[in-house]
């Protein structure tokens, strides 16, 4: 049980930090709305709703990327990562706590982004919402680990999108499939499979990313 207590403590620390500083969340929110407005002008007037569904996923992936770039910034700026790594808890708990916090941020952004998308473009159905939830789990799991890798590099924010986007391609395929296909079941199953595989991989390998 201590493992989950650690995870909750770490996640709560990040949420509290964000509540006090309000660095990332408003930026993500403004970014996703701006992106949707950009897409309105990028789409030709006679474009169909299916094209807009694809753009929703572009907006979500890039918004997540914006948040992920800052995920380890508080730790890095105050040199707290060493302290976390030395803390008497399982190192994978650091990843799980961080990924949980990122999931909460991203979920909150999506709570605004999906109704906004429905308002601007096309109504959002249940399959899309399920797809967004499943894809968000994958984005947070993989993105948090890749952000930790990028934080160790000299180029940081520059290298993260390069690492993240190839891994996000299957998520976009699954998400768009769930949004536009008449039979979204297999796309949702694929997203769940992706989440399962990569969550286990990230959980097992995070220790090596932060330790020497």
């Amino acid at each position, binding site marked *: 049980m201590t493992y989950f207590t650690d995870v909750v403590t770490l996640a709560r620390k990040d949420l509290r930090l964000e509540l006090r500083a309000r660095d990332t969340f408003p930026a993500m929110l403004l970014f996703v709305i701006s992106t949707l407005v950009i897409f309105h002008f990028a789409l030709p007037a006679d474009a169909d709703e299916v094209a807009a569904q694809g753009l929703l996923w572009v907006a979500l992936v890039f918004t997540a990327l914006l948040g992920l770039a800052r995920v380890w910034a508080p730790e890095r700026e105050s040199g707290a990562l060493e302290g976390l790594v030395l803390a008497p808890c399982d190192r994978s708990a650091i990843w799980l706590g961080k990924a949980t916090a990122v999931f909460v941020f991203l979920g909150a952004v999506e709570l605004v982004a999906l109704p906004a998308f429905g308002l601007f473009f096309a109504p959002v159905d249940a399959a899309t919402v399920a797809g967004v939830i499943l894809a968000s789990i994958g984005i947070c799991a993989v993105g948090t680990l890749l952000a930790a890798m990028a934080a160790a590099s000299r180029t940081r924010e520059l290298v993260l999108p390069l690492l993240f986007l190839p891994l996000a391609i299957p998520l976009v*395929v699954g998400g768009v499939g769930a949004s536009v296909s008449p039979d979204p079941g297999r796309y949702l199953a694929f997203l769940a499979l992706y989440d399962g595989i990569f969550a286990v991989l990230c959980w097992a390998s995070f220790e090596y990313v932060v330790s020497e």
Partner: protein
Amino acid sequence: MSTSSRNNHVPVLAALAAALIGVAIGFAFFVAPEDVDQGISQRIFYFHVPIALTAYSCFGWGAYKALLLLWRKDERYDLESYVAIHQGTIFGSLTLLTGSIWAKASWGHWWLWSENQLVLFLVLFLFYSAYFMLRFSIEEGPRRANISAVYALFGVVLIPVSFLAIRLAENIIHPTVFTREGPQMSGTMFLTFCIAWLAMTVLAYALYRLELLGKRLDSNLRELRELVT
């Protein structure tokens, strides 16, 4: 010593690779029968597919060495994993190139999104290009070795996942040569394919050994220089 005797294998391997590739070219152009459907353009199959399979093997080999690094904490696996992925990326680029030529000859377009293998290789090419970006922006040391290894492991997991994703997103027009009933080609064609596959694998292994040799020499030289100064 053991390293010097191992180094002597490289010229032998290179000669073997050259000879095998010569035989493979001979078989592909003069022994294998002409494809009824596609004519001469089908012969690029004997290079395209073995190169693609070799690229997969290199990525797999790189991930295996990465796993060994994380498992045993032995630094030499880092270089071996990196070199294997480097070779894999080279063979992956060749796959994109030969696949593109084949697509142009068969379907009249240089690029087809409906061609699963090509799209998969594009995704892998992007993924492994990012590997180099990541690796060269981290200070040399155990941290870099660990991060590179974890990323290399992500690669082998991404291959089947991406394959599945592309299958889900597709409409199939890529000719499926290998089905569950076994290879759909004549005996001579299959023999030619196997020779070409062997030739490419030996070539990749020779290049892998050669690059490893060069990189090790480099690092030994650097160590010696640091000792002198």
